């Protein structure tokens, strides 16, 4: 792919996205509610697209396509089980939304701190989110790095891609907070889904239509249509990958914070349904994409390069290839800017706001804006470590966030839950996940996420039972 063509397409994308971001400015944006939650007035359509763009990142067309390339149909099962997990929003969405409106919560960790009547709870959850989401953002940044490097045959170096993605994410979150993020997200989500679907249709047609496509897979790569197939998706591996992602909609604050934003329950519903349909289509597109790479280029050493190869293949016209490449870049950036914004709100509200006396809403906002670039730089540094298989690192951040799930479920459904239960479960199991990831071990064959959720559930319940639970907030949360 010619470097000039790539740079031209990126420039067009930047100009359009910047215009949209500038147009999205509305109101004074001088308080936390306005900057981070859009005054809780987001409409369903924008919320759905923005939720989709935030959730689906460079991971889909780079990582998931790569997983399909490596392990076959298990990748589809993995991602669709994640999608089924978003059904949790149908149960927790209205509860988050109602308590958010009633008590004015800006962040999910603030909500937990108030529910368990303990500021340390809020701070611990906020800090653990930062610890695990910065690597996750780094994964997205390296996605852009690999992509630009791959499609231009190293003419655009890895680091240039990283810098570009970091700067754009920063700008999109700075211009108008969640409003610029949501509107640029929406543009990017539409762009991602339309262009990648077109490419997949072109690929299927080029590879002999539906019959020819699956015919080739069935004859030449039968193990890619079953699990465990070639062994990549052994049952325990599959479980280890899927469980953290199943709870993603609750465990990841950049998406659960979205539950406070819709203007009404009807908008919340539109957000959920819109996202489910988007996710369904996009998952199938990404998996078929990975299969196409397998049929066309069966001998790649690094599965993460499957997508750049597909984009440069003879089947995809160069203009379409470059447009999709920008779409993938946009997918990564739309995820990073949301994470930047959420993490900065967590820090400002739950760490600074809780421990600095007289931290007014306005000061919290200023601190939040100051933290955004700090987090971006951290993610950038982490990304430069160039970790090999993108999906694995991404999943391990999800495993680390999973440990807060028992406390979140308990907040709405178990009146005996206590602050000590939350803190011990999040801290201890968070550390266990980090140790397992760091040493690359699998005690008893179980992945880090499974250990994390087992230990955190056990600790949350047992420690809660021997400590005193807050009564009033528990009652309000359980009856909402």
């Amino acid at each position: 792919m010619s470097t000039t063509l790539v740079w031209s397409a990126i420039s067009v994308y930047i100009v359009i996205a910047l215009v949209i971001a500038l147009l999205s400015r509305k109101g004074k944006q001088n308080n936390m509610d306005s900057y981070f939650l859009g005054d809780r007035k987001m409409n369903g359509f924008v919320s759905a697209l923005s939720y989709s763009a935030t959730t689906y990142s460079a991971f889909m067309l780079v990582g998931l396509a790569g997983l399909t390339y490596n392990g076959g149909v298990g990748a589809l099962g993995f991602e669709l089980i994640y999608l089924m997990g978003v059904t949790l929003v149908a149960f927790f969405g209205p509860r988050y939304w109602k308590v958010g409106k009633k008590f004015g919560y800006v962040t999910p960790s603030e909500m937990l701190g108030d529910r368990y009547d303990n500021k340390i709870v809020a701070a611990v959850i906020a800090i653990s989110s930062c610890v695990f989401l910065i690597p996750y953002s780094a994964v997205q940044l390296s996605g852009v790095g690999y992509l630009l490097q791959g499609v231009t045959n190293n003419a655009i170096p890895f680091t240039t891609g990283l810098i570009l993605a970091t700067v754009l994410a920063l700008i999109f979150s700075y211009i108008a907070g969640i409003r610029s993020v949501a509107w640029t997200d929406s543009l990017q989500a539409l762009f991602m889904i339309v262009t990648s679907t077109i490419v997949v249709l072109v690929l299927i047609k080029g590879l002999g239509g539906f019959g020819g496509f699956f015919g080739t897979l069935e004859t030449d790569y039968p193990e890619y249509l079953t699990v465990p197939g070639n062994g990549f998706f052994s049952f325990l591996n599959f479980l280890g990958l899927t469980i953290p992602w199943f709870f993603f909609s609750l465990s990841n604050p950049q998406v659960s914070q979205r539950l406070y934003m819709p203007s009404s329950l009807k908008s919340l519903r539109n957000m959920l349904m819109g996202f489910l349909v988007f996710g369904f289509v996009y998952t199938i597109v990404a998996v078929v994409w990975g299969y196409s790479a397998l049929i066309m280029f069966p001998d790649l050493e690094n599965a993460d390069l499957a997508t750049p190869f597909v984009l440069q293949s003879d089947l995809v016209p160069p203009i379409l290839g470059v447009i999709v490449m920008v779409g993938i870049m946009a997918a990564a950036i739309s995820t990073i800017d949301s994470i930047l914004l959420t993490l900065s709100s967590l820090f400002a509200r739950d760490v600074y706001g809780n421990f600095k006396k007289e931290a007014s809403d306005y000061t919290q906002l200023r601190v939040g804006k100051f933290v955004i670039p700090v987090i971006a730089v951290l993610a950038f540094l982490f990304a430069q470590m160039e970790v090999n298989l993108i999906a694995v690192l991404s999943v391990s951040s999800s495993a680390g966030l999973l440990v807060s799930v028992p406390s979140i479920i308990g907040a709405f459904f178990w009146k005996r839950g206590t602050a000590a239960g939350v803190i011990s479960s999040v801290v201890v199991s968070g550390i266990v996940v980090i140790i397992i990831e760091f040493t690359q071990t699998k005690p008893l064959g179980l992945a880090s996420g499974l250990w994390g959720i087992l230990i955190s559930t056990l600790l949350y319940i047992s420690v809660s039972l021997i400590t005193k639970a807050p009564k009033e907030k528990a009652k309000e949360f359980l009856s909402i």
Partner: protein
Amino acid sequence: MKINEFKWALCILFIIFIAYILPYTLLTNVAKWYGSFLLWVVLAFTIIIINYFLTKDWGKE
């Protein structure tokens, strides 16, 4: 949890259970498009339909 929610939750849990078990048992040797590929697609679609009904009355209460 309301009774209506509880019924749907059971239904969803059952579907997720199938999504884990069938591909690793009955379909483990069915190397066709109508094997695990189709099963997961159909189950995910079913969950979307359930969500449609589960959330039908939001905002009307």
